[in-house]
């Protein structure tokens, strides 16, 4: 084991130096890697999980990306009836577009308007609308965002380059194991002639977390 850094600073390093130090050049599996394999094999041996289930779940996880959420947002922008259904029951409306929910979670879609800007967080851990966005980025799971999003959202947004006018209310929604949120960003101005597909290209992961607005310039930004 390499020596851990202190406290939350340790979190910042996770997944980089630490994991590489663990796996090493030899490719020798680390302690936790071995533990994962052992737990999985024991559960399969006891027939508590099927031998192919993990592989199938990995395929499912790989199939979920922010492109799905972008499709939902673009549809809501062009189809007011769909938008109304999406705001009434996020999960059901996503399922309408063929996006299956592989867990028991409910989805609440929060609409940004001229008066309200929404931001999502999970202060306790890393709950996230995974069926429509895939897995969350590391920063979403780390202490600075989880701690500060609820107490100083304007400062947090500013760190993402997002300045929200003072007369716009900021609402921060804290996710739980059962209830997940997705931000429906405002449709950028000057996109009246855009096709649904062109609109979807403007909708990045971060716009649906609520840390940046959707914009013609920000579309296609690295996810």
């Amino acid at each position, binding site marked *: 084991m390499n020596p*851990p850094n*202190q*406290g*939350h600073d*340790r*979190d*910042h390093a996770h*997944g*980089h130096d*630490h994991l590489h130090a663990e*796996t090493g050049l030899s*490719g*020798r*599996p*680390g302690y*936790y*890697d*071995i*533990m*994962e*394999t*052992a*737990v999985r*094999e*024991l*559960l399969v041996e006891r027939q*508590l*999980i099927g031998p192919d*289930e*993990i*592989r199938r*779940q*990995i395929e*499912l*996880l790989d199939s979920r990306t922010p492109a799905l959420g972008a499709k939902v947002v673009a549809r809501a922008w062009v189809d007011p009836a769909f938008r109304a259904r999406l705001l009434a029951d996020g999960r059901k409306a996503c399922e309408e577009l063929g996006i299956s929910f592989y*867990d028991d979670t409910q989805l609440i879609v929060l609409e940004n308007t001229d008066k309200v800007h929404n931001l999502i*967080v999970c*202060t*306790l*851990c*890393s*709950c996230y609308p995974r069926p429509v966005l895939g*897995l969350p*980025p*590391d*920063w979403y799971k*780390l*202490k*600075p*965002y*989880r*701690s*500060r999003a*609820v*107490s100083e959202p304007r400062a947090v947004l500013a*760190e*993402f380059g997002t300045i929200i006018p003072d007369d716009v209310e900021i609402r921060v929604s*804290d996710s739980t*194991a*059962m209830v997940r949120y997705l931000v429906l960003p405002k449709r950028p101005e000057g996109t009246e002639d855009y096709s649904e597909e062109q609109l979807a290209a403007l909708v990045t992961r971060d716009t649906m977390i609520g840390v940046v607005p959707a914009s013609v310039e920000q579309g296609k930004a690295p996810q």
Partner: protein
Amino acid sequence: MTQTENLVKRLPNDIGGLPAEPIRRVDHELEPWEKRCHALADVLDYHKIINTEEKRCGVEALGAEMVGKLNYYERWIVAFANILFRKGILTPDTLARKMAEVEARWTAGNQSESGDITPS
């Protein structure tokens, strides 16, 4: 406020609203074992062996030191093991033996592989 009082009022996961440093927009591609660990979490939830909330509590139950020092998926797999022990599904001994077996298998496989490519 004393330090222990703070420990009582705030469990390790309960960090909403605390002061913290600026956000660094870090991310990384999951290691293969991390992705397997995530898939395992989902599958355990499907079968109601360990649901999402039990997993979160299991991570919290690791205590502040482990929560601070283990990384994200390390916390998950250790929490799963502990919960499976508590539910009587696995025992620490069974897991330890299986881990030794997995490691021995890797070592054996690796030795035979490197044997193949060693120039004579």
